[in-house]
């Protein structure tokens, strides 16, 4: 598959978002809920940032996608975490999701427009390059049979969502070139850690341009570069 895409303007000026770390689910030696009364009452904590628990109240969704224990694969989540702090735009929700493909149907449903932030590995890219793509740019080839249930493109996702009676949004993809989304680990590669602040800034700028009334706040948040 071939797609033409314009990389974003990556002027560097480090900003950092917090790592998408998991809160401990219980004190050492005890499982989550172990201290809670075992009387049938729920022991669910507050929803984490980015979890969707009901129908969308916003028209536009910025959704970071990735796996936060597969090194650079977490960049979509990190960008979303950062945008949740810095992007102030009316009618715009920012979320992160650690799943993809067909599982996105319910997540995307009901919005008018969705910006997906995801990692990508291309043949000639350099970590930190980023691309603005349409769904058709990244649709699996028609002849691709696939061997696992993961293999559903965004076009098929739209068809399926509509068949399910869902209202599927217009989609724009911000694909970030990464170095290693394959190995397990909670740390970005050095190349990605170095490149990410400028990518975040560029994506912030792009969204401010595209979203009516959007502005950046908390721009002085110091970059937690150690975590990145």
């Amino acid at each position: 598959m071939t797609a033409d895409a314009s990389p974003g303007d990556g002027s560097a000026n480090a900003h950092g978002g917090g790592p998408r770390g998991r809160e401990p689910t219980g004190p050492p030696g005890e499982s989550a809920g172990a201290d809670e009364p075992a009387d049938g009452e729920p022991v669910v904590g507050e929803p984490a940032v980015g979890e969707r628990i009901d129908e969308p109240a916003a028209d536009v969704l910025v959704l970071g996608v990735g796996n936060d224990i597969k090194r650079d694969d977490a960049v979509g989540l990190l960008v979303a975490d950062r945008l949740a702090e810095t992007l102030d735009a009316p009618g715009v929700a920012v979320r992160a999701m650690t799943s993809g493909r067909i599982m996105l149907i319910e997540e995307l449903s009901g919005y008018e427009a969705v910006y997906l932030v995801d990692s990508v590995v291309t043949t000639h890219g350099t970590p930190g390059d980023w691309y603005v793509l349409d769904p058709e740019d990244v649709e699996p080839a028609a002849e691709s049979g696939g061997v696992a249930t993961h293999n559903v493109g965004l076009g098929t996702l739209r068809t399926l969502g509509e068949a399910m009676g869902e209202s599927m949004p217009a989609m724009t993809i911000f694909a970030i070139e990464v170095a290693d989304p394959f190995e397990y680990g909670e740390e970005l590669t050095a190349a990605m850690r170095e490149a990410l602040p400028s990518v975040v800034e560029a994506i912030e700028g792009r969204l401010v341009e595209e979203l009516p009334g959007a502005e950046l706040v908390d721009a002085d948040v110091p970059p937690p570069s150690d975590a990145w």
Partner: protein
Amino acid sequence: MTETHTIDPVTRVEGHGKITIDVDEDGTVEDAKFHVTEFRGFEEFVEGRPVWEMPEITARICGICPVSHQLAAAKALDEIADVDLPPAAVKLRELLHVGQVAQSHALSFFYLSSPDLLLGYDADPARRNIEGVLEEEPELAERGIELRSYGQSIIGALGGKEVHPDFAIGGGVTNTLDREAGEELLERSEPLVGYVRETIDRLRDVFTEMDEETLDYATYPTGYMGLVDGEGGLEHYDGDVRLIDADGERLEQFPSGDYEAVIGERSVDWSYLKFPYYRERGFEDGQYRVGPLARLNLVDDVGTPAAREEWEAFRDAADGGVHERSTYYHWARLIEICYCIERSRELLEDDDVYDGQPNVSTRPVRRNGVGVIEAPRGTLIHEYDVDDDGIVTNANFVVATTHNNAAMNRGVRSAAEAFVDGPELPEGILNKIESVIRCYDPCLSCSTHAIGDMPLEVTLERDGEVLDEVSR
């Protein structure tokens, strides 16, 4: 500054599979292998972490079937804490699990396999997909969508978020089910058993009309392994592990914690996946399969009425033996959807899931715990060793795709021998070889993406020389 990049190809962030087929001078297949080049390193990743994190963190192995890992890890934690769960906790976990199995099976059958079965293996690949099925058989496709959605809704109602629910924990689950949500699910589930049974009828018609060569191209004898309940019935959440031979005779039935004494694992240099086998019979003769076909081959009963009828028809069709056809994984998968729908209704009608005690306190008491469940694709084993502080010192995961590794390789070879003839790989043949793998619905990776493709490389070789190569 803006410049234009050409992305060629936009690829991967998924896993990666590879098939090599070796042919001789006459074009006759000498060997064929299915290589898995991903899935490595997770066991090392969790070592040094607190074991109580395992249900949550192992769920992140996969963005598609996280519930299975979460439940296996939670069961291992129960052992480490040496606790007995309240009845409500067991029922709630089982409800979560049947929701997961139903949605996963529906995804596998309706979205991925039904295009081959209903539109034909040789159909135009541009149409041989769920969109093509939606056009040709919209009612069936829409029912498949609803079946998957129902399973997802169970997970969502319990876990609060549908993909990575933080629901199962050591000692039970985090919460009971909201009664209103349960009543909605019950109402919604009413037509679903009928949907599945009509789909089973449709599939049996497809098999009847299918030419023998296609029906049998991945048929071979193996053992079969899976959990059974106390009466030998179909069980996805708990119970002993049963292993039968290729004739259906019972070889072993053992508590899940004894798996290492029964099952060996061999590594090869061309795949990251190990090859498990039944120790007593050795590597060559001890291969077995897991998953829906295995489960329905080895049980003595199925515990819900409609699924029991379907299973009896399935069993009777084997003429007193077991089904060896890989294509019958699809049939077994549909019967299991039927069971899961019925079982979910039984659980949703049980007051315990609304009013019972969801968990008990846990502390590390033992140094080792094993959790085994029947994931949609087959037996899933989690084992952890911990120190006094509950820190993981060693972990071992045996996933369903690993158990089926030898069978998938055998199936690929069988299909290659049946269909490859000459130095090229025509598309229809390629799809038949791929479809063998799809029978097992393997998980090959754990990345979670919206974009990209999952490349499968197929190479035809003679004495190391590449004759044809297809990547897609």
